[in-house]
């Protein structure tokens, strides 16, 4: 479980996050949704400690993460996996080396054990025969899947995904969503997903937090979201043409 309390974050005079308090539950895919520029990525990066927060508390189970020093944070960070918006695979390493990297860095496993774990992770994300390819030789969907394989290689307790579907075609986006949900349930991970993709919201949104202009405007799940009377949320959900048409049709 991850608990955020009264989190504030600003960049110079730009107040990006305003009194954010929310709990993300274990074994569930927790979604943070909102328009571009609403503060989703800043919230995610603040939670994982990539941004220093101005005030507030971030708890990982019963550990106050934001008060830990670099060395103490390192321990918790080894329990985290993160899928970045652009995958963030290391360009100079092959697929296998990318997935192996956390194992090389933080474990004393033998080469055989590491290779076995790498192959298991790559199989888990349905990547076969790509061990020796470089990231530049992969498609967008494959890059995301390799990034997931790298994120789960150390068996994390927490998985963070920053817009996992951005730049993917609908079939691939569905695949990535399904993979994130499966992995979350399989390993009982606390998963946080940043997205503005409504397909993801409906498919995997077990807990949904809607952020608008740096504030939490609505909390619920995929079943409640379409029936909310929150104006800002409805403006966001029914912003696209197809959704608008469906809503009009349902109204009639």
């Amino acid at each position, binding site marked *: 479980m991850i608990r955020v309390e009264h989190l504030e974050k600003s960049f110079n005079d730009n107040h990006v996050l305003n009194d954010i308090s929310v709990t993300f539950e274990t074994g569930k895919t927790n979604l943070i949704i909102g328009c571009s520029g609403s503060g989703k990525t800043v919230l995610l990066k603040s939670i994982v400690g990539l941004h220093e927060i101005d005030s507030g508390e971030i708890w990982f189970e019963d550990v106050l993460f934001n008060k830990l020093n670099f060395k103490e944070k390192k321990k918790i960070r080894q329990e985290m996996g993160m899928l970045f918006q652009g995958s*963030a695979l290391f360009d100079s390493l092959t697929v296998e080396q990318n997935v192996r990297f956390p194992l*090389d860095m933080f474990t004393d496993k033998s080469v055989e054990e590491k290779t076995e774990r790498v192959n298991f992770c790559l199989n888990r994300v349905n990547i076969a025969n790509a061990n020796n390819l470089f990231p530049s030789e992969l498609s967008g969907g494959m890059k995301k899947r390799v990034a997931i394989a790298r994120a789960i290689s150390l068996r994390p307790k927490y998985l963070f995904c920053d817009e996992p579907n951005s730049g993917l075609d609908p079939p691939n986006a569905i695949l990535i969503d399904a993979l994130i949900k499966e992995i979350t349930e399989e390993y009982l991970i606390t998963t946080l997903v940043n997205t503005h993709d409504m397909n993801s919201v409906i498919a995997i949104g077990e807990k949904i937090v809607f952020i608008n202009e740096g504030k939490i405007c609505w909390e619920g799940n995929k079943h409640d979201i379409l029936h909310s009377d929150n104006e800002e949320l409805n403006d966001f959900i029914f912003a696209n043409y197809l959704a608008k048409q469906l809503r009009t049709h349902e109204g009639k």
Partner: protein
Amino acid sequence: MIRFLTEFGRYFLLLKKVFSRPEKFSVYYKQTMHELVYLGFYSVGIISIISFFMGAVITLQTAYNTENPIYPSYLIGLGCRDSIILEFSSTISALILAGKVGSSIASEIGTMKVTEQIDALEMMGVNSASYLILPKIIATLLFNPVLTLISICVGILGGWVAGTSAGVITSENYIYGIQYAFIPYYITYSVIKTLVFAFIISSVSAYEGYYVEGGSLEVGRASTKAVVFSSVLILLFNVILTQLLLS
């Protein structure tokens, strides 16, 4: 002034992070070996070519400017040797490496920054500054003196080829000249300068890359800044070290 002091402070804070205890020596060792090849070994070609022609031009210019019967011709070899050892092989090579290696370091780290690869390292609990920069500093400190020694040898060879081919000096006189009144300390002086320049090139360029914010345009700018700042610092430290080591 405040901006300069801020940047100066940030540079030393980065160095503190760079020289902290590595997570795993075996990974750093592998990375250092890779950088030795990439930053060091791959520079042998360019340094050799430049040194060869540098030596050739120094010999010809010395010959054409000392066409006087009272000067013994072996002084051409001596002049070529000392110019190469004292200045050209360390300073000019460092300026060339600031362009080749410095821009490569800044753009590599800068690209990793803007594509969130550095964030990915930090997320895993890796000290990204140390993991990315320390092997580069060690590699340049280890290999740049080798490059300087190669440059000295090739430069003197270039002088011999040009001098004898153009007929401005005989082979015997040139060889006598390069051995005449040789001061071994000049090699030490040259290597000390190279070590300082290597540290400037790798650390300043890494600093410029590590703090890039934005996109590809900013990475390009950081790469240019890395070359400019490294070159200016090399020239400044060249004067300081010369005064300190030769006075």
